[in-house]
């Protein structure tokens, strides 16, 4: 077994131990209730833990399968996220072809460029070429009704669901890490999610000052806790990266804080669209976009910082 594989398994074992502890905790809480009764808070908690199990198992399997596994996993996540975003986007019949292109041409091409390691093309394909092409396709149908809103929402969906998410598997081409670059993906996902969990928990315990009153229950105190937790996790996991504990902590903190503000942006979009969750595909969590919102914002920043720090 190579070093990388054993490190992946070690990380998964750590996470699985954590999940076993959380599952046992939930079952004990269930067992304490009188027979025949259920507590909605405990049930939601257990639903989330079960979804976490599925995510961890899928991510571990994809990672062990290597580059192809991760490309397909995140490609599917992009597809599911784009589906959720465009379901609520403003569109007319004239946009049908450009939306079909977004799903069936632009998304696969973006992942092809990531897979081939064509970093130059992958970085400009959606922000430049899709940005120019799709409005042309829509305009050719001759329907000017709310044109700017339509093309802007489609482009936003592509940027968020495809461009940003594809930066996660793009970490694979981070040359200085060699075949250990796969571990960078696990590092990013773990520090962001642990930061979110700590932010949620601390915010509930002793959060006071709202960051964006009327939009989200996020508090300054909760966010500080979350970022600290992410930095600590980053320092602990520095052996998975080519960086020392200091830089690992800084990277984790920046990724985590970007992610938290990202989920604030998503709260604003959902409020604007009048939806609570993007979909109901992940039990207890909502949709793929609800689950991924912080990773989406953190991924490009993390991607560019890793390259910046190294050179």
């Amino acid at each position: 077994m190579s070093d990388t594989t054993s490190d992946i398994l070690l990380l998964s074992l750590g996470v699985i131990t954590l999940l076993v502890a959380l599952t046992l905790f939930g079952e004990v809480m269930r067992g304490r209730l009188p027979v025949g009764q259920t507590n909605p808070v405990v049930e939601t908690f257990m639903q989330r833990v079960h979804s976490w199990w599925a995510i961890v198992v899928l991510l571990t399997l994809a990672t062990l399968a290597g580059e192809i596994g991760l490309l397909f996993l995140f490609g599917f996540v992009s597809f599911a996220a784009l589906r959720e975003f465009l379901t609520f986007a403003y569109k007319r019949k004239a946009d049908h072809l450009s939306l079909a292109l977004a799903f069936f041409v632009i998304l696969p091409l973006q992942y092809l460029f990531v897979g081939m390691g064509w970093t130059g093309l992958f970085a400009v394909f959606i922000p430049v070429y899709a940005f120019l092409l799709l409005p042309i396709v829509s305009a050719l149908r001759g329907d000017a009704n709310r044109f700017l809103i339509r093309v802007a929402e489609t482009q936003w969906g592509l940027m968020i669901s495809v461009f940003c998410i594809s930066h996660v598997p793009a970490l694979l081409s981070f040359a200085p890490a060699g075949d250990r670059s796969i571990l960078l993906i696990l590092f990013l996902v773990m520090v962001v999610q642990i930061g979110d969990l700590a932010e949620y928990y601390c915010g509930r315990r002793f959060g006071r000052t709202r960051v964006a009153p009327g939009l989200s229950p996020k508090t300054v105190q909760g966010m500080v806790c979350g970022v600290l937790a992410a930095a600590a996790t980053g320092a602990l996991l520095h052996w998975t990266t080519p960086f020392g504990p200091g830089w690992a902590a800084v990277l984790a903190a920046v990724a985590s804080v970007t992610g938290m503000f990202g989920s604030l942006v998503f709260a604003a979009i959902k409020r604007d669209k009048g939806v609570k969750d993007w979909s109901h595909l992940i039990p207890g969590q909502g949709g793929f976009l609800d689950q991924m919102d912080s990773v989406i914002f953190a991924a490009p920043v993390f991607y560019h910082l890793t390259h910046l720090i190294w050179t």
Partner: protein
Amino acid sequence: MVRVAALPRLLAARIVGHALTFVARFVIAVRADWRGIEPVPRQRVYFANHVSNADMPILWSVLPSALRRRTRPVAAADYWLKTPLRTFAGRDVFRAVLIDRRPEARTEDPMARILETLDEGSSLIIFPDGKRNMTEDPLLPFRAGLYNMGRARPEVDLVPAWIANLNEVMPKGEVIPLPLICTVTFGAPLHVGPDEGKDAFLTRASAALAALAPPRPDDIR
């Protein structure tokens, strides 16, 4: 009693049915919102809005499998018997109650077929609009069939089911379907009142169905 010779066809129909359900859930992510009723095995007539040829398969595949096995769509014979493939889909996969829309070609009374199917204990899926709605209005005027069923079999629940987003998945004239999320919202069951007239009931049923529609995206400030 199933004849042995029919078994391969039956098996193929089952497999195709499961495959369709899988695609509907995985690609279009169809979701049921049981707002007015629970998904329990009661005898029901689900009546839905009709904008696309995919309506019936979508509503059919969103039902839990125990209910789906006892639910038969009422569909147009002239459409579903046109080619061998459609015949297989309509007759074997969906087990549709096929009704001829052309009165001159009919050999039996469609309402008698429908009531017979209800008496077997099956639930039904019907589209009271009669034909696909190509207008900007949410619903076309309802045909009388729904009223006649409710009058003849008053114990059966008439359940409105709104299929949202499907006209965006595949607008008329487009070839490529978009994988957008479709939701089917089931409302509270209706029954024909003791001395309720046909028009009054159909207006009430139409309003109950239209009330399940999500707000239109045109309402941008």
